[in-house]
């Protein structure tokens, strides 16, 4: 019974993911969302707006700082949970 339900759940997940893949835009077309104005804006404006010569640091610590904050929180909670589990 468990095997049958596992196979069924897997097939349903595969079908859902393939339906998502079917709607992806074609590779390399000019009007794709990956070719929008955002990357050019970052490349030309980051140094002027944040003062950071390293554009990656300017993005992850200024424009996308909330994302970096949650990454740091993930690291913190990982370390704290491992400390609690292995407490002698």
């Amino acid at each position: 019974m468990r095997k049958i339900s596992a196979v069924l759940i897997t097939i349903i997940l595969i079908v859902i993911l393939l339906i998502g893949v079917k709607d992806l835009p074609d590779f390399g077309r000019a009007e794709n969302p990956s070719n929008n104005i955002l990357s050019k804006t970052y490349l030309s404006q980051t140094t002027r707006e944040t003062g950071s010569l390293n554009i990656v640091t300017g993005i992850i610590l200024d424009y996308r700082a909330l994302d970096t904050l949650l990454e740091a929180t993930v690291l913190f909670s990982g370390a704290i949970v491992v400390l609690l589990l292995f407490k002698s």
Partner: protein
Amino acid sequence: MEKDIILKEVGKILIPLIQLFGLYVIINGHLSPGGGFSGGTILGTSLIIMHLIYGKEFIMKIYSRKRLVSSLSISLIFYTLIKGYSFLSYQLHLPHPSVGVTGRILSAGFILPLNIAVGFLVASVFYIIFTIFINSEV
């Protein structure tokens, strides 16, 4: 467990250089490739090398469990406070530091203290996870 004397003497030369390089990568995070995550990894690696060469008791004297956990927590709180003030200051028109002259160390507003906070957090996390898998405790 007594380690080789060559290992100890080479460690005396190499470990300060590794830590200096880690601090350099953290502090120059907004000017050159690198930043908090990579510099913190280098600092954590120097702590791991110290643990492997000189043993647990040596490193416990300068970086005990309590200090490790408090540096972890303080750097996360520091990051949250600075970035929270940064978000609020843009919204409520509070004063925030200017961008400054591009290319100086003391420029780029909040990015330098944020890099330092992330660097110390990552170094502490790396060392904690290493010691737990080596000793089953910190």
